[in-house]
């Protein structure tokens, strides 16, 4: 009885640790080695398009709406204290420090991460990866590496776009609709936002989240059980694991950056 429980616990622990090991080996095999820019660059551009450019629309639309909602909700509280002039820093700081990187990472996990997992899982199921190995093409270098770099490059850029659009959305609601003074919206924002403390820390955050999300997505696809059910499970796991890991790391990074 109790030994069975213990065995289950032990097996899942060993499986998890083995999974960590395999994902580390996968990333190591994909990234470490002499880079071949002539071959790698076109692949990277192609993936930047699929992962970055095609995610732009959902990022812009959600950034706009999140900025608008922030301004609307912030205004209802701030106006009670007669402090609606502080709407600018409220919107800008919440976007730059938290919502920009985190929501971008969550959307990215749903939009691009799941697609990466499904694509690579299907490549594995249809034995394209083994086929590449037969032709002496390293699938790690040809499939995994460009996708990893494309994700790591495009997510911070997407987060920056998200922040900028969100602040403009806050301006749209706060200034143009609710009648906060436009000058004080920008000037209090400029007085309270610091380039290094707020903007660059947000970029560092989204950089970390990018590595997390892309790594999890690629590993889940590469490690998927090569059946249709296995791929669907792997895709679900990507979104769930990546989202939870991002939220956990967000707490740690926030405590390190802004807690002290």
């Amino acid at each position, binding site marked *: 009885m109790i030994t069975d429980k213990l065995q289950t616990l032990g097996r899942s622990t060993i499986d998890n640790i083995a999974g960590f090991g395999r994902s580390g080996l996968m990333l190591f095999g994909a990234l470490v080695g002499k880079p071949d820019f002539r071959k790698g660059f076109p692949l990277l*551009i192609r993936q930047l398009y699929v992962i970055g450019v095609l995610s732009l629309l959902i990022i812009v639309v959600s950034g706009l709406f999140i900025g608008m909602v922030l301004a609307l909700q912030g205004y209802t509280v701030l106006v009670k204290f007669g402090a609606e002039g502080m709407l600018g820093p409220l919107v800008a700081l919440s976007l*730059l420090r938290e919502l920009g990187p985190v929501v971008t990472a969550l959307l990215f996990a749903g939009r691009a991460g799941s697609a990466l997992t499904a694509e690579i899982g299907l490549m594995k199921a249809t034995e394209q990866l083994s086929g590449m190995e037969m032709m002496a093409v390293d699938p790690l270098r040809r499939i995994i590496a460009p996708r990893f770099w494309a994700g790591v490059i495009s997510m911070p*850029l997407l987060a*920056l776009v998200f922040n*900028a659009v969100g602040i403009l959305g806050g301006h749209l609601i706060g200034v143009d609709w609710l009648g906060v003074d436009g000058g004080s919206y920008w000037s209090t924002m*400029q007085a309270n936002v*610091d380039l290094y403390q707020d*903007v660059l820390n947000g970029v560092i955050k989204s950089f970390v989240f990018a590595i997390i999300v892309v790594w999890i997505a690629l590993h889940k696809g590469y490690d998927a059980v090569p059946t249709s059910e296995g791929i669907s499970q792997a895709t679900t796991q990507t979104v769930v694991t990546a989202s939870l890991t991002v939220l956990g790391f967000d707490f740690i990074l926030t405590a390190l950056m802004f807690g002290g």
Partner: protein
Amino acid sequence: MTTRKIEILVGAFIVVAVAAFLMLALKVANAGVSGSGESYVLYAKFENIGGLKVRSPIKVGGVVVGRVASIDLDTVYYTPVVKMEINEQYSNFPETSSVAILTSGLLGEQYLGLQPGFIDETVQILADGDSIQDTRSAIVLEELIGQFLFNRGN
């Protein structure tokens, strides 16, 4: 889709992202003014700095001329020493200038108000590393109320 079209779209993506960063840096964080422009250092000792913080603004007549670089405690007299970084273009403050810790509004942030002093033959201009002697500390509301109650008791 042709490679050329994809490359153009990726290029546009990068341009949009860089534009967003520039907007955040210049319009939102206003890095142009508070950035790494040439500055020189002055020191001032206070009895009590209240809520003054590092990077609080230093204002002359309401215009920001610099920022607080650091706040330390003098190890001999245990009084706070504020290191001020002042923009190089405002480098003609005489040694008779005074500096006070003021509050913007009733509950707002605290800042350093720099009041330029008079100039005659014996007065020197403050240079990099000099101290301002004439300082007024922050008004601590609790002390003020305590004094008021004490005076009423008399």
